[in-house]
């Protein structure tokens, strides 16, 4: 089976409820879009992530009321180095959308979405622990997987697989 090439044109994808709602609200927050393998990805300006999540959660037509997953990808050594990835699900409409925000490598920080979904609490702590991305406004930003006195962030690409010896 051949894979269809990805679509990156905003105009062609406007029928998707998440993108339609964001363009209607403020088109400037959408940096890029991609539709690939039946999944839509929207790159968001990182300053607006909390507002975007709140807008999508409270959308009247298709509320994306459930945060499935929140994680991060390290693109070391290129810049912007980190991409924080949010997977949202609309439980009533069974629609999914992936949001992404790009962060630079020197002092990666983004606003926390715990005020939108309390479930983001543990996910953000995990990303902080394993990638070293700070979430401003998080109620309890501490390590969750690794011991509190651990040095380094294991899932960064410049951290060796076998660890520091």
């Amino acid at each position, binding site marked *: *089976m051949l894979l269809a090439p990805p679509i990156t044109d905003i105009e062609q994808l406007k029928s998707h409820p998440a993108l339609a709602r964001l363009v209607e609200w403020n088109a400037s927050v959408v940096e890029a879009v991609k539709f690939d393998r039946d*999944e839509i990805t929207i790159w968001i300006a990182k300053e607006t992530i909390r507002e975007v999540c709140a807008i999508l959660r409270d959308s009247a037509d298709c509320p994306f009321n459930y945060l499935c997953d929140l994680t991060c990808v390290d693109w070391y050594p290129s810049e912007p180095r980190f991409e924080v990835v949010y997977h949202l699900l609309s439980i009533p409409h069974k629609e999914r959308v*992936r949001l992404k925000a790009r962060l630079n490598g020197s002092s990666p920080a983004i606003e926390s979405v715990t005020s939108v979904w*309390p479930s983001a*609490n543990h996910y953000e702590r995990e990303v902080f622990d394993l990638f070293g991305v700070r979430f401003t406004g998080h109620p309890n930003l501490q390590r969750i*997987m690794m011991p509190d006195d651990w040095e380094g962030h294991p899932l960064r690409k410049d951290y060796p697989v076998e660890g520091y010896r």
Partner: protein
Amino acid sequence: MTQSPATVAVPGPDLTSDRTSDDRTLVLNMGPQHPSTHGVLRLVLEIDGETVVRLKPEIGYLHTGIEKTCEAKFYQQVVPLTDRIDYLCPMTNNLCYCLAVEKLLGLEIPPRAQWMRVLMNELTRINSHLVWLGTHAMDLGAMTVFLYCFREREDVLRFFEMVSGQRMMTSYFRIGGLALEPPLGFFEKVKKFADRFPGNVDEYEGLLTGNPIFMMRTKGVGHLSAEDAIALGACGPTLRGSGVDIDLRRDAPYTGYENFKFNVPVRTEGDVFARYLCRVAELRESIGIVQQALAGMPEGPIKADSPKVVLPDREKMKTQMEALIYHFKIITEGFTVPAGEVYQAIESPRGEMGYYIVSDGTAKPYRVHMRGPSYANLQALAKMCEGQLIADVVAAIGSIDIVLGDVDR
């Protein structure tokens, strides 16, 4: 049951990070070696007499860095790692990972492999729910159910051993299909089990559902409203027990679930008893799916026709030069996957299990992230327990069916 020695009081201001305690409360440590935490979950409880004021889970004791390990392995080498995440439902993990990679590759899976995947996946759900039912009932003092559940679980594990040679770490699903054709006599044995199993479920229900002690320990305990369940990210039977009607097998069908007829049990009470009823009803639905899969099992190949990705049969490898070359190349160099990313979610026994895989076009995954359902459900535990009695914490932990391998990864 005697009081466990693992519950000891620890002094210190550990809990006071974002709220101050007063002199009325006591900080109590529960776990990580506590029999009712189903693994190495540690809970720090702040209690006022018998009432839980705050509950804070401390996790990470089983963290093995599987996500990091995956980045150093070929795509096919990740499959055995996925067994070890949620060790009560190995096939569900295998399936989710394989579906994600197949979606990245654009592979078409033959019907027989798909139906076998559904069959084994539902047996895995039965296996997982039986362990949950047995241990949950034992936590609440009902020993008999535990022994009955493990009797039936043994049969399911024997089926796993028949198809894969392993009772628990099966790695039976591979990228592109299945590892092996099921052995002779397998379907007849599963059929016998499926015919007998609804009677066994009646037996469990006869011991628990109308049991006044069990009802007193579970009804109205660990309440979670639908709004809280969604906001806190609960999933699976925990979410359905709170009245949210979602099941990915029905709502976003994968691996041929659209061909099967089944109901999604939903309860609106949102307490421990409602989650119990949901899971027991799911046992009956699962055995119905097993019956349908046995009745309609198609003939044909069990591997996709894609020699660069799927290992050749043993027979071909020994007789055909080309098959031997492909085998050698896959084992030594792996296979490349077109660049891109996918998020594949499936309905595991505990809820939405998701694999987010990023490929950079090489033979090793650039990033693999597992969205574990237990990790999501654990966040709802504090809401269920705060303001309740300390004895009910055990009931609440049992009702979210937590697997710590899935939490810590």
